[in-house]
């Protein structure tokens, strides 16, 4: 079966982004970028399913400017077979992203669609669910374990307070939690091989979709800083400080 993995290029997770002085947006010029960590879990899972003989072909897809080829190369180097870049310089919101991915899914007809559970830049956590809705497919979000047999995916999901297991009929959409797997490191020979794998580029305009971003960002700001704390020398001093905050510790 074919698996499609949708990935996003985001600011590296170790970087603390700054707000531009005029509050118009975050300043990410020259900042290290990479594959969204949750999406890397999704790629890794597709590769493991291929190694088990369940998935036969993995297509990695992203939406963005030409520079997004770097994350597609990364997915190819990890083990994806081919990649598609839907090229646009516009910044799309989750509903628009879901509509674009729907068009790609309709071309590719995958049995399994994998995404990360959220992107670490907008922290929306919506695209997978929206795509599943538009495709009228069952969804299994926050997957920490996926087992596929008899055209069913049995998915253990991370929920508040524990886990839930769902069985979804394929084709289905699954979003990856960090707990799903440990993504492999890319080795140099794989990176070289990945350069020979095909990346198809589709101009977003050629898909003739009606896309609107209905959410406008008015301004951004740094969160209020916590007042500087104090260092205490021992447990007794700590306790006396906490006891002065009435109601916290008796």
């Amino acid at each position, binding site marked *: 079966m074919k698996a499609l993995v949708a990935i996003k290029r985001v600011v590296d*997770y170790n970087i*603390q*982004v700054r707000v531009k002085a005029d509050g118009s947006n*975050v300043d990410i010029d020259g900042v290290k970028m990479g594959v969204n960590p*949750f999406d890397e879990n999704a790629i890794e899972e597709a590769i493991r399913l291929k190694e088990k003989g369940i998935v036969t072909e993995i297509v990695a897809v992203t939406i963005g400017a030409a520079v997004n080829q770097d994350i597609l190369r990364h997915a190819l180097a990890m083990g994806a077979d081919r990649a598609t870049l839907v090229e646009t310089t516009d910044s799309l919101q*989750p*509903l628009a992203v*879901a509509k674009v991915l729907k068009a790609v899914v309709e071309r590719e007809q995958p049995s399994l669609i994998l995404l990360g559970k959220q992107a*670490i830049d*907008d*922290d*929306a*956590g*919506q695209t*997978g*669910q*929206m*795509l599943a*809705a*538009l495709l009228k497919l*069952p*969804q*299994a979000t*926050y997957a*920490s374990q996926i087992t596929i047999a008899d055209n069913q995916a049995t998915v253990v999901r*991370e*929920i*508040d*307070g*524990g886990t*839930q297991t*769902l*069985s*979804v*009929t394929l084709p289905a959409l699954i979003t990856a*939690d*960090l707990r799903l797997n440990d993504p492999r490191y890319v080795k140099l020979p794989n990176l070289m091989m990945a350069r020979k794998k095909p990346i198809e580029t589709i101009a977003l305009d050629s898909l003739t979709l009606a896309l609107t*971003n*209905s*959410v*406008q960002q*008015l301004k*951004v*700001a*740094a*969160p209020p800083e*916590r007042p500087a*704390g*104090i*260092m*205490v020398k*021992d*447990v*007794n001093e*700590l*306790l006396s400080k*906490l006891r002065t*905050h009435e*109601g*916290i510790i008796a």
Partner: protein
Amino acid sequence: MRTLIIAEHDGQHLNEQVARAVTAAQQWQQPVDVLIAAAQPDGLAAQAAALQGVSSVLVASDAALQHPTAEHLTDIIVPLAANYTVVLAAHSAFSKNVLPRVAALLDVNMLSDVLEIVNTNTYVRGIYAGNVLATVQSSDAIQVLTVRGSKFAAAAAGATAEVKSINTPAAPQGSRWVSEAFNKSERPALTAAKVVVSGGRALGSADAFAQVIAPLADKLHAAIGASRAAVDAGYAPNDLQVGQTGVVVAPELYIAVGISGAIQHAYGMKDSKVVVAINQDPEAQIFKIADYGLVADLFEVVPQLTAAL
């Protein structure tokens, strides 16, 4: 027009976050309805009807709603939504699974984990793991959003809203609930606790985590949290993870034990009223957000602290 709240529950009790969503819903100054979708909804409907600020409680009842799927809930919510200008729920694993699906079928965007409602279509929410606060305005005809419960006080009980049954579509095929496993605990729920004691990688083992963190939590009647490192290492179950990929807490007191304070962890706890950090490394990031820091061996000072309480 009206506001619809999607109520989360465990079949018997309304999640305490529902009362917080009811407070958030008052911002629109229009009637607020609460949807209860359940196999046995009567008790739940009564709990929702008692919340002050609720106009009416809509009840969808079906045996399959014992363990509802996102697909079934979506099929119930989407036809209702035409009567509403706002569909909202408290941000949780439950609502963030369902509401984006609803929004897509309504052909609107959604606002996740809203921290502040500025006016009827303008919100503040965190991006980049809470390191940036974005003020955003939605032009959608139906505003679909999840709010961070800890930013809104819980609505009090004592009211008696009317309860109405609604037609409930049958559960769609294609998705089937198999089982659930909850980590049973006598402790307060992490998101609702007044005090949280969290352990990190420095605990070194599951045994040490239990032996050092649990007694302190017991003394303080606290919930236990954990950093991702502690969860990944198997010291604590996943659902105790505090942070960008886990739960967000804002207790009166947060005690971080052996936690370095990575960006992703800080996301989940930096709105706590008072933060205490106990760490051996004076350079640890956690000290930058701590009100009180103690540089010491946690294996010495945490038992001392427990004994002194």
